[in-house]
């Protein structure tokens, strides 16, 4: 079971965490660095490309990667896939949080399927970033390694319908992904795709 949520007065220590932040947009990089610096992080590697990030991850121990999804040449999904399959062994299951401005369902699913621990919708807020880091820190998902996928277990825990409900409504948990575009997903909707949790109906 995951550890219990921490109350707001609990302490967190970011000082010794080695964090890699990746974004090809300088402004977005500054914003994320400002936020995690505010949390107390001191060992931050700022990378303007996935290539730079790969060098940093290859050279030392990294405790968390926060990457933008949409980058030229190698995007955040491919970077995550590289971490899960080709990074040095000690960094292969480092938590990866993907951050993106546009979150159609297919991209959220893509983030989950490339092995990311979480996807966060921009524009970011310090509270959202803190919440998701704490969620990732608390989770006890098993690691999965097979031909088709390497990363944290993607399966939802099937705990059945809520008390008093006979079952799911017919429209719930529709897994169809449209061929063209779907509406942008809110952070709450993203959470239902990315976070193993009890299914609510």
């Amino acid at each position, binding site marked *: 079971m995951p*550890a219990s949520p*921490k*109350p*707001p*007065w*609990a*302490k*967190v*220590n*970011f*000082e*010794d*965490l080695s964090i890699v932040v990746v*974004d090809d*947009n300088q*402004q*977005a990089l500054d*914003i994320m660095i*400002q*936020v995690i*610096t*505010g*949390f*107390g992080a001191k060992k931050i590697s700022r990378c303007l490309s996935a290539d730079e990030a790969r060098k940093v991850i290859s050279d030392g121990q990294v*405790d*968390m990667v926060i990457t933008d999804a*949409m980058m030229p040449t190698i995007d955040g999904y491919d970077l995550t896939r590289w971490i899960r399959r080709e990074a040095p062994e000690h960094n292969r*299951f480092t*938590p990866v949080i993907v951050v993106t*401005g*546009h979150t*159609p369902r297919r991209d959220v699913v893509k983030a989950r399927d490339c092995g990311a621990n979480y996807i966060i919708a*921009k*524009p970011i*807020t*310090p*509270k959202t*970033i*803190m919440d998701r*880091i*704490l969620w*990732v*820190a*608390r*989770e*006890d*998902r*098993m*690691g*999965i*390694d*097979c*031909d*088709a996928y390497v990363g944290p*277990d993607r399966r939802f825990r099937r705990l059945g319908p809520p008390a008093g409900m006979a079952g799911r409504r017919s429209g719930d948990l529709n897994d169809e992904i449209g*061929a*063209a*575009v779907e*509406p*942008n997903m809110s952070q709450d909707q993203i959470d239902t795709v990315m976070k193993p949790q009890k299914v609510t109906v």
Partner: protein
Amino acid sequence: MTVVRKFKIPNRLRAALFSGGGKRIDEAVADADVGLATLVDACLAAVADCIARIESGFGSQVADRQTHDMGDLYRLSAAIIDACAPIEPKALADAARSLCDVLDYAMEAGHWDWPAVDIHIDALRLLASGVDLGEGGEQRLIQSLDKLRQHREALAG
């Protein structure tokens, strides 16, 4: 046959975060909010720059706009969402995201809906200008963009 290996992942993040010392969670968030506030001017300038580049490259007065790389328009819209982190109104990010949806659909369908793009550019300019839209005005504007997008997509099939 595919072999699936399932194993426990050592959680270094948890070990380091809760190793003692550091800051209270609420204080850390408050400190980050203060830090983010120092970027407001830079972010406002970035938003203004993106809108100016969108208008000069893809506005209705640009005769050959259909020849420009629509990926650039998508990236500029996404850059507006990035820069909205410390600034108001949040509806600005919603309008930029709606434009991303329009462009995403257009790129998938191969059908360019310039009137929808123009309306989104107008909405971005209006929201960035800081004009008071009255109570609930920003929300109504975003709802209108949503309805417009759904209507145009239904028309395009």
